[in-house]
């Protein structure tokens, strides 16, 4: 014991020829002064080189956030550190490289949707569940004062779906709406 050689040899070495690769990171920023600068700092701090920034001010998300697309280059083994640093800094990373960080889930709401103020319901979902409503379909076969159904497609930060759905459940029980959630987990 103790003098066995380090068995790191079977760990594939990420450092190849010291080369860099280009990556695209999509972020969502709060519309506040200094926010863009704050969001970009972790890129440089972790060895990334900024190539270009598309600040899509005209394309505000329903939650009032601004989508930003950042092209950068860095050694492949640094990329995860950069993404982690962005997230640690509280930046909402929607997509990094090939990987989508945002999860998309659909929920169906049933009840007196109009009477219980659908637009308030949706803004509560955005605030309390921290989700972005990407689209909404409404079916009200009994007219607007009867039972209707709505399907909302939501973008949620990765790993936060359970939390977001719990928040939507509680909004549903406040407003006496039935919330039909997606089944997460497993290979449905």
């Amino acid at each position, binding site marked *: 014991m103790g003098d066995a050689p380090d068995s790191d040899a079977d760990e594939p070495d990420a450092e190849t020829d010291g080369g860099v690769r280009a990556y695209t990171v999509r972020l969502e920023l709060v519309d506040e002064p200094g926010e863009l600068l704050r969001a970009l700092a972790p890129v440089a701090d972790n060895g990334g080189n900024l190539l270009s920034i598309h600040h899509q001010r005209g394309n505000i998300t329903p939650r009032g956030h601004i989508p930003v697309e950042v092209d950068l280059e860095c050694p492949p083994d640094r990329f995860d550190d950069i993404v982690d640093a962005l997230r640690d800094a509280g930046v909402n990373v929607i997509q990094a490289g090939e990987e989508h960080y945002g999860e998309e889930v659909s929920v169906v709401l049933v009840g007196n949707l109009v009477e219980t103020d659908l637009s308030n319901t949706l803004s509560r979902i955005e605030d309390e569940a921290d989700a972005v409503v990407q689209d909404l379909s409404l079916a009200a076969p009994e007219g607007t004062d009867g039972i209707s159904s709505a399907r909302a497609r939501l973008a949620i930060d990765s790993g936060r779906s359970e939390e977001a759905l719990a928040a939507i459940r509680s909004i549903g029980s406040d407003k006496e709406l039935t919330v*039909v959630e997606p*089944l997460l987990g497993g290979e449905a």
Partner: protein
Amino acid sequence: MRLAILGAGDVGRSVADLAGEYGHEVVALADSTSAAIDPDGIGVEAALERKAGDEALGTADPEDVLETEYDVLVEATPTTLGDAEPGFSHVRRALEADRHAVLANKGPVAERYEELRALEADSAGSIRFEATVGGAIPVLSTIEDCTPQSVTAVRGVLNGTANFILTRMAAEGLDYEHVLAEAQDLGVAEADPTFDVDGTDAALKFVILANVLADGGFALEDAAVEGIQSIPGSALDLAAEDGRTIRLIGEATRDGVRVGPRLVPENGALAVTGTRNIVQIETRNAGSLHSSGRGAGGPETATAVLSDVGRLPPL
């Protein structure tokens, strides 16, 4: 094995009918009012004919069934909630007399699991209850084979009536009340379908699964249960536009039990149609296993009872 069957509904009668085929002998068969008892084996066919003709099953008192010489009690009386009586006491008497008990009755295993296991620990007999979950589908024996420790979750559709209603609503664009009436005409739904449509029946099965995974700790009151009564046809239409459908899905893990209407991919494994049931067993080392089949019915459920009898050790 010599079987004493309590309960002469669809399941009890089918167990009696098929026992011979599986190499077992029926020494008693009882409903709530009368019993046929014979230590050398009752005439099953004659007893079932009497029952079908609304006559007494036999001349004996149901109270005497557990006094006779038998190896396995088959508990197939109707499921009751709360104290799960009289099913629980029947099983207790069998275990205290060092006999085996095989349950088709969900009540005792869902509501009083730890007490049953404690009685079993003090007995030479053992309990099995494959028939309580998923009818003919081998669910508990699959978990037993994987070992419960390596199963992380069980999800699926374990109520055929609710699944039939949701399937018809989605296919025909009809509303709940309409399809329920149709299901009752077809005999798919009972006159009082409450436990099927409000999720209670499915919840009992997932509570049993959680008890198996966690070795006890759950009863019906611990489950978060929602039914399908409030789902209109329009909700299914919206789901379909997105390539999804709605099913009454249960989930059992070591952390809890949840049953409610959920969105699932329209062509996914869990979106079984009609009265069919399905379970997805999520394992630590082997990915997901799916078993699908008939989750109810006399002969179907009786096969699960008789498979359990076959797995029992000799007394």
